[in-house]
């Protein structure tokens, strides 16, 4: 250990912050089992009723399904393009490289609403009908930067020697990608896929502007929260927390496997 500040001091500060991070989430989970028909406190008794109510709520169940569908579509668009972008940035020098890099990063600092507005203008101008598909394209574009950043950082750590060796031994681009690059970036790839999935499941700003008739779960929750919150919100929230927990666990399991690049 190379402690700088005394351990008790730093841990009580950090512990306080962690408590701050977890308390509100725990409150929602607890409230989702509250038998009171009102949303908030006090806690009147334990029940699973709101969970069965959620299962019976067609609008919510449809929205959950839509969210998952959009999230996988977003991954299908954002992750492969992100990997290509990262490889191009890592391996080659081309005119306008710095501009390309900043273009990729722009959606990180640009408010989602502005990304949404410009895409909406694009769709209106091109006469494209809004649907779950237009949401996917929007989220996919906004989230390419996640994969680019993660995979690019990994490629930079690796250096070029393996790639050059494979090249000298006569491997073509395709073979190099599958047998050299891919095994090395696997964990970064899984990590960024998980991040893109969860960001997409939770995305509202871009979705808000690009949504057609079908809605995702955050949009449905949003419309409920703006009127009068019902206990279903706590339940849907808890379900989403569980869903992401499962995703994260799967992601960590997958990425903990053998890592050929680490020797």
């Amino acid at each position: 250990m190379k402690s700088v500040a005394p351990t008790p001091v730093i841990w009580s500060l950090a512990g306080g912050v962690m408590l701050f991070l977890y308390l509100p989430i725990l409150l929602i989970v607890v409230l989702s089992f509250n038998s009171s028909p009102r949303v908030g406190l006090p806690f009147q008794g334990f029940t699973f009723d709101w969970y069965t109510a959620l299962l019976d709520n067609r609008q919510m169940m449809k929205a959950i399904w839509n969210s998952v569908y959009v999230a996988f579509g977003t991954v299908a668009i954002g992750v492969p393009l992100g990997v290509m972008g990262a490889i191009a940035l890592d391996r080659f020098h081309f005119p306008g490289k710095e501009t390309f890099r900043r273009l990729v990063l722009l959606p990180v600092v640009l408010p989602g609403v502005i990304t949404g507005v410009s895409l909406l203008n694009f769709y209106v101008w091109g006469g494209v009908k809004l649907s779950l598909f237009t949401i996917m394209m929007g989220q996919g574009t906004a989230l390419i930067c996640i994969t680019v950043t993660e995979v690019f950082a990994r490629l930079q750590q690796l250096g070029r020697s393996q790639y050059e060796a494979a090249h000298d031994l006569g491997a073509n681009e395709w073979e190099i990608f599958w047998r050299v690059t891919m095994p090395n970036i696997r964990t970064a790839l899984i990590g960024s896929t998980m991040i893109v999935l969860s960001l997409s499941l939770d995305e509202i700003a871009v979705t808000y502007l690009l949504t057609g008739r079908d809605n995702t779960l955050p949009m449905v929750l949003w419309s409920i929260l703006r009127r009068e919150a019902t206990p279903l919100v706590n339940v849907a929230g808890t379900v989403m927390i569980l869903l992401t927990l499962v995703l994260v666990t799967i992601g960590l399991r997958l990425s903990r496997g053998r890592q050929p690049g680490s020797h």
Partner: protein
Amino acid sequence: MAIWLLPPLLWFVLFMLVPYAITVFYSFGRMDGVLFAPDFSLENYRKVFFDAPYAPIILRSAWIGLLTAIFSSLLAYPVAMAMAFNLPSERARQIVYILVILPWWASYLVKAYAWKAILGPSGLINKGLMSAGLIDEPIRIFLYNDFSVVLTLTYIFTPFAVLSIYAQLERIPGSLIEAARDMGANGFEIFRRIVLPISVPGVLAGAVITFSLGFGDFLAPALLGGSDSLMISSVVISLLGVANDRPLAAAIGVTIIVLAALLISAVNRLEKRTQVRL
């Protein structure tokens, strides 16, 4: 080279540059009744900069973003320090790392709404104070103001700040700190002269993300903000909806795109200048 560069490049051109260009095109036009009329006028930009309420609301959003960035960095710093310097093993570090990310992965809306359940008139704080006999009536100052908005945004975005500060602190070799200690530096001196300077790029990176997320937010102000706590994203949405003024919304969009591009350049330069080689 082309097979790697071309697909993402074409995608960015089609789904970013072309939409931006169309937005610029719209921003020079005007509404003729309910229909868009192409034009080449700077009238919308004049409105953005000089007509109430647009420029003040952009500044207000930046102020909320700045507060979010400052508080997130302050909260994140001790956690990042504890992760980098006060954990016994790599495994413990991984576990705490995951514990920090998990709350970030919970739904944004649920987290914002949770603060309503804590700060509201029948929320956790008021119920607690009332049952302790400290107050008879619920206190209403916690909710529906800038305090609740900044608190919620800080809460939601702090994990981003932790991760980017930690990424810098992690680079500090233990030997550097031991050497400083051997030469008689105390904890505070080590912090001020080694840890703090090295962490600057991480703090900056985290602050840019939290600032931008706070700046562009429209959910927290709508859920927990007061009647006057309008932010620029909500203005853009209402311009597209009820007001049906696409050209003005486009002009605000273009203004913010330019500001964001400037922010990226400025921060890139700052991060490069403050980066310490280890």
